[in-house]
């Protein structure tokens, strides 16, 4: 079975631009979470979606938004890009949100560079 897939793999943008990152969860998984991983740091939680509804939001500005589609895939949007948004953006999927101990499976990430 395919794991979590993310696109694009790499992306270069300039300050002020907008970016959309995409994630396809493992088949059968209904929960998708987004994390930001700055070089040399652990991943930071941005959003969790379950059944197309936002279930959690981390400490990120409103420039960050996301949505989940009926097929459970998800998009992360970032507006008005800043240099500090340069990071690896990780998507993780899990079977459900019924149990918090459901394993979160991470995709390979999208490397965003803001110039």
């Amino acid at each position, binding site marked *: 079975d395919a794991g*979590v897939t993310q696109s694009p793999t790499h992306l270069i943008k300039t300050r002020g631009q907008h970016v959309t990152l995409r994630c396809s969860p493992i088949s059968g998984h209904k*929960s998708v*979470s987004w*994390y930001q991983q700055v070089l*040399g*740091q*652990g*991943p*930071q*939680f941005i959003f*969790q979606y379950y059944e197309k509804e936002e*279930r*959690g939001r*981390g400490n990120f500005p409103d420039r960050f938004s996301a949505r989940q589609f009926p097929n459970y895939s998800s998009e992360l949007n970032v507006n008005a890009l800043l240099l500090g948004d340069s990071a690896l953006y*990780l998507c*993780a999927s*899990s079977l459900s*949100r019924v*149990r*918090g*101990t*459901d*394993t*979160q*499976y*991470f*995709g*390979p*990430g999208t490397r965003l560079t803001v110039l």
Partner: protein
Amino acid sequence: QQQVKQSPQSLIVQKGGISIINCAYENTAFDYFPWYQQFPGKGPALLIAIRPDVSEKKEGRFTISFNKSAKQFSLHIMDSQPGDSATYFCAACNSGGSNYKLTFGKGTLLTVNP
């Protein structure tokens, strides 16, 4: 405020040695503690996880030790191999919360010399 503190930042061990990585947490609502392994260019992959109702969990060469009163947990890698060279992250989660976000430590870069 960093809720999960991880040490050391980097670790070098010889092949066959024991690698030990430590983490401490502050939020007593955390009740699920996974460890993730990340290779360069890849996303983190779950290695082993523990709940605080047990003090130790072993899977192959990997063991988690958990001290609830001290709010500390550690990963032991026995018989470390060069293929274990990666960045290791501890994490914590409140499984009874409204969302199941993982709070990660800053990571430990492990290098196993042949």
